[in-house]
């Protein structure tokens, strides 16, 4: 065939000119002008991994999101923790749900979205109070839609559940300071005394607090290097960074705080800070008495007292290990009282700005919600149950028997990303878009700098365009089923968000006059600062504080150890156990990977003849787990700690069958004032099973020998009085 043949062949394909057929050619991506193949571009969005609500930039190349970085315009100051980085692994997780599942003949079978939506309409028709919605903490427009939906059904049952809630802290703060979540200025304090608040790793807003901590530790012209004292039964990451870590008998933190308050109030300079009645009420807490209760010797007590006197302003924080007891609110109040005595209120603790949109203001969860939800199920009050952003079958303590109670609801719907434990108990499982595919607005519960609304936007096309849907979009569709007139103007969740924000743009700082430009700027910055948010004031009047410790006789000798169910920053309440990076990253304190463990003090281990790697049975009155022993000196000797987050029976290949779940051990103890589950109030006994394993950890191979530097200069330490400040050149 000659040249003419070749041209004939081409002509035979139907192309007569270079332009013909162009309508059938579609580019792999249809990019914006600024997209250049091979060059990463960054889009702003919001991290949904914990309640901190950090702003993020996602690196996108050729239509794929690759890596998350911090957004410098938000309170995390351009930084991001490991868990935030791992958000991409939720997005690309191989075990994500890709299609709706419906229970048919006892097993979950694939179904269509049309079918699912029709079922939702049918089951919610005239549901009224027979309908219940259980969600995790909510804020922004998603909260508005969720509440409106529940209301549209004529139901009052919206339960907001957070297994790791700081509800006790919030309710006592509300009583003492007048606001549930005041702003803490760690960077401006000379001394931070934290009673179990792990603010560097797991507490409230760890990345923001970490950046404050960096300033706190640096000396400058106006202040010396800050000193950190941590008081807790089990060493947290914050405790590991303290200048002085003080182990305390679990639950006696309040008595120590009152002892310190009493000692300080002997001095008129401090006594003027609180009413005389308060000073009188703590008089019984002298040093000897407090020493007996807490197990803290008088030398340690005196040092702490001297520090509190010398270093002002200081900041005293109350954390979960002090609050998770039957008398947790009393402990928290006693600890917060110290801030009044020391005159810190108004200096290192200030009022946050008020969120001007009450409907969108963050709704923090608690565990009371779980109890109420469980009660309703138990008494057969709910016929149709929707669940979102929770895994109660996994996180509920065994004594609640939630798994059995859930069976009493006729129709259980779970909106989720994974086929987790709760999905296995549900009748309809609906797969959601990942956080990197969905729209959203978030208002973090902790607002350190004015009031900021952070935007969540999709960073790439849906991985499963026909399979997953946006939860906001679903709520909108469901609302249309019941209130079509009100909601028909918005075709999707995106248009709802855009119109709601654009309509209210005058509420934000320096909005562009043009709506299009305003929206463009909002998306590119990823954050909206509320203009002139309402001031709030701290009502600084401490009431009388009492700490009623449980009587010593109430301590059951059959269960000689106190259980600390410790929180790991990479796992939180267990929802991140299916992230391979989180499993493979060594736990900071123990360096263990891919498993659970029980931390036991070396002295206690020696007494009981326990070696590292021995499989121990840890039994409470309501359950037991078996896991490997790890000798850990950062522990009160009568305490054992098991980390939360592992022990999944479902949820995907990286989570399933790894480790044990200490949620199941928790005793039916509730905090008196708030009704919250008292997480740190469980007594356990431990026994050897006779089995032994090699603990898989990063710290080296000699089992049972605590790793030290063996005299080498690896991590060197300098005494603080030798460090003068260096000015920037």
């Amino acid at each position: 065939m000659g040249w003419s043949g070749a041209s004939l062949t081409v002509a035979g394909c139907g192309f007569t000119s270079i332009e013909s057929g162009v309508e059938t050619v579609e580019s792999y991506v249809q990019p914006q002008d600024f997209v250049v193949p091979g060059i990463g571009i960054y889009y702003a969005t919001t991290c949904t991994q914990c309640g901190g609500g950090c702003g993020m930039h996602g690196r996108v190349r050729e239509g794929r999101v690759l890596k998350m970085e911090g957004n410098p315009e938000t309170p995390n100051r351009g930084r991001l923790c490991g868990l935030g980085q791992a958000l991409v692994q939720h997005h690309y997780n191989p075990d994500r749900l890709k299609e709706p599942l419906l229970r048919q003949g006892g097993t979950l079978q694939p179904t269509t979205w049309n079918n699912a939506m029709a079922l939702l309409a049918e089951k919610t028709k005239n549901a009224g109070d027979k309908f219940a919605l259980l969600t995790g903490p909510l804020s922004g427009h998603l909260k508005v839609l969720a509440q409106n939906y529940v209301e549209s059904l004529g139901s009052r049952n919206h339960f907001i559940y957070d297994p790791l809630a700081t509800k006790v802290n919030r309710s006592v703060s509300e009583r003492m300071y007048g606001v549930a979540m005041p702003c803490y200025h760690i960077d401006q304090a000379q001394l931070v005394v934290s009673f179990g608040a792990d603010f560097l790793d797991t507490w409230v807003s760890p990345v923001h607090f970490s950046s404050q901590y960096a300033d706190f530790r640096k000396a400058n012209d106006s202040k010396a290097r800050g000193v950190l004292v941590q008081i807790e039964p089990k060493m947290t990451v914050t405790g590991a960074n303290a200048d002085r870590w003080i182990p305390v008998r679990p639950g006696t933190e309040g008595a120590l705080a009152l002892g310190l308050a009493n000692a300080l109030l002997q001095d008129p300079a401090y006594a003027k800070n609180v009413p005389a009645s308060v000073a009188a009420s703590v008089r019984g807490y002298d040093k000897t008495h407090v020493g007996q209760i807490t197990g803290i010797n008088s030398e340690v007590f005196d040092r702490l007292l001297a520090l509190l006197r010398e270093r002002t302003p200081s900041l005293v924080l109350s954390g979960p290990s002090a609050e998770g007891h039957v008398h947790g609110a009393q402990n928290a109040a006693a600890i917060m009282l110290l801030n009044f005595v020391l005159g810190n209120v108004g200096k290192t603790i200030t009022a946050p700005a008020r969120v001007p949109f009450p409907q969108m203001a963050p709704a923090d969860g608690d565990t009371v919600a779980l109890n109420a939800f469980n009660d309703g199920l138990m008494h057969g009050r709910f016929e149709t149950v929707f669940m979102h952003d929770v895994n109660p079958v996994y996180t509920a303590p065994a004594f609640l028997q939630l798994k059995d109670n859930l069976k009493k609801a006729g129709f259980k719907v779970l909106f989720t990303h994974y086929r987790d434990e709760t999905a296995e108990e549900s009748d309809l499982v609906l797969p959601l878009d990942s956080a990197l595919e969905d729209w959203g607005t978030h208002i973090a519960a902790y607002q350190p700098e004015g009031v900021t609304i952070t935007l969540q936007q999709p960073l790439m096309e849906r991985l499963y365009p026909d399979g997953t849907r946006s939860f906001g979009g679903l709520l909108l569709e469901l609302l249309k089923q019941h209130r079509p007139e009100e909601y028909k103007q918005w075709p999707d969740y995106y248009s709802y968000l855009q119109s709601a924000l654009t309509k209210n743009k005058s509420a934000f700082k320096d909005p562009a006059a043009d709506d299009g430009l305003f929206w463009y700027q909002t998306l590119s910055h990823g954050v909206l600062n509320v203009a002139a948010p309402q001031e709030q004031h701290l009502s600084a009047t401490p009431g009388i504080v009492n700490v009623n410790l449980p009587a010593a006789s109430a301590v059951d000798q059959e269960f000689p150890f106190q259980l600390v169910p410790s929180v790991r920053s990479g796992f939180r309440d267990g929802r991140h156990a299916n992230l391979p990076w989180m499993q493979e990253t060594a736990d900071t304190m123990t360096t263990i990977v891919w498993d659970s463990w029980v931390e036991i003090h070396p002295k206690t281990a020696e007494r009981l003849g326990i070696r590292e790697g021995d499989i121990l049975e840890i039994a409470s009155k309501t359950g037991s787990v078996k896991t490997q022993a790890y000798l850990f000196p950062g522990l009160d000797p009568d305490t054992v700690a098991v980390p939360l987050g592992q022990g999944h029976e479902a949820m995907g290949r990286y989570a399933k069958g790894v480790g044990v779940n200490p949620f199941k051990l928790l005793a039916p103890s509730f905090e008196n004032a708030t009704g919250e589950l008292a997480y740190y109030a469980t007594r356990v006994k431990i026994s050897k099973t006779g089995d032994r394993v090699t603990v898989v950890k990063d710290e080296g191979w000699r089992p049972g020998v605590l790793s030290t530097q063996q005299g080498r200069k690896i991590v060197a330490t300098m005494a603080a009085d030798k460090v003068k400040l260096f000015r920037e050149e």
Partner: protein
Amino acid sequence: MSITYMLRDWTHYRSTHPSADINKDHPEGYKWAMAIDLDACTGCNACVVACYAENNLPVVGKEKFAHGFAMHWMRIERYWNDEDIETPQHGAQFMPMLCQQCEAAPCETVCPVGATNHTPDGLNSQVYNRCIGSRYCSVNCPYKVRYFNFYNYPEQEHAWPDPLPMQLNPDLTVRTKGVMEKCTFCVQRLYEAKSKARTDGRLVKDGEVTTACAQSCPTGAITFGNLLDPYSKVAKMWRQQRMDLYKDVQDKDRDGNPENIRGYRVLEELRAYPSIIYLERVRDAQA
């Protein structure tokens, strides 16, 4: 090959690191270096995860981790204090450990095929397609920061089941079986920044490029930059701490009074001349 060819004097082709002149050793005008403040480091592991995300590190799973096959280019070492081992009342001690990019790297001299060597911008590089897997370099590394691919992670071990490969950073490779790998100071980022600067006819400015670990660090404990740029933050920190890249005994230590100066290099006495200085952690004895 003739015997005369073999016996010729080749010494002028050899260079010794470090030589007398830091600028001659780094003709491009770059010497990448780091300073890590251990008083700011909290051991939170953000850097470790950032490194997995940036550098396509495989997750090996429990069994292989137990065999020491973990591929974390960056790790947090945790030590207890000898003195208060029963009650660690001064907390724990954390050390972010990564390749120290030594100027006289012990790993380089033992490579039989020259797969690991020094780049003009002062990195200890690893050429994957030259590596034959002798693992001598790993044996010789005093910091134990070289990681060997004992398995074919991408294909046989399914370290990235679908759709996880979509997350992989296209700016660098996924390594295969039989290859040594290690921290590169995020060379793909450096390369991009250098090319951009070269196009503009200038050197990379301080703050224009940073490593993934330094970028994520919530307390800003890690400072990265060009040591040859006297105004870079990292060069200032080295100067402030009286640390000299090319000295094996620092002047401050010779003076015998290192009070107020926290800079040091890990295992300095081995004379590997690391490019990373650490700043001592501080603890208040009064507390």
